[in-house]
């Protein structure tokens, strides 16, 4: 556990404006990315195999399997601390709710409009839902 992270004040942990720090991208290790690749690949393969065995609707449940979140929480705790992992999980509550919106929009649109357009609209719905949820609950 990082000493610096433990000493951070509550003030510093309070919600700050969202930002993208490109410098942090360079700190992602190959091992961490490989771990996440494995989690995503295994989930996708499991969903594909489940489709063959149980049909599309039953296997669709696995499309929302939290493999990547589980991998991220473990890695965040290793690199930073449990509080940062909890923060990530808090955000994922809203991301997960937005994922349900994605699925609902995709269900409503696939088969009625062009597939690419349906998935694009569903992805936008996910992003809009996630951002709206974050802003509503935590924007300061």
């Amino acid at each position: 556990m990082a000493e610096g992270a433990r000493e951070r004040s509550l003030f510093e942990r309070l919600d700050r404006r969202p930002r993208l720090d490109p410098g942090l991208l360079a700190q992602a290790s190959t091992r961490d990315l490989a771990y996440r690749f494995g989690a995503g690949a295994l989930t996708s393969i499991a969903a594909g195999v489940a489709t063959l065995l149980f049909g599309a609707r039953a296997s669709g449940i696995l499309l929302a399997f939290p493999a990547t979140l589980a991998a991220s929480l473990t890695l965040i705790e290793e690199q930073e601390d449990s509080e940062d992992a909890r923060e990530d999980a808090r955000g994922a509550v809203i991301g997960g709710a937005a994922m349900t919106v994605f699925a609902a929009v995709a269900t409503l649109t696939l088969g009625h409009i062009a597939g690419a357009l349906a998935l694009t609209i569903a992805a936008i719905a996910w992003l809009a839902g996630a951002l709206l949820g974050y802003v509503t609950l935590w924007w300061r």
Partner: protein
Amino acid sequence: MHDALIVAVKGLAGGTLVVLFALLSEGLRPKRFAGLFSAAPAVALVGLTITLLDKGPHQAHESAAGMIAGGAGMVAYAVAAVSLLRRVRAARASAAGLLAWAGVSALAALPLLA
């Protein structure tokens, strides 16, 4: 052979898109905002796209309908993780959270699979 190839392509593409979202999440602050992207529908986007191309819109529609149940489970997983991480390490919290995912997904799936 064709089905095996499709599954392999899903695996490669799914892993790649997850890495891209993970990189984005790594660069975002605060962590709570980055967490939105830890629950991004990366696997679903890949799975549904390939299903659309391979099997057509009806099967993709069916998969998306099933995903609604999984999405409810994802929320349950994240809520459980927030609570459990206060007491146990992430690996144990993740494993226990998966029980929450499975339970809630199964309940939510009952009306969808009936």
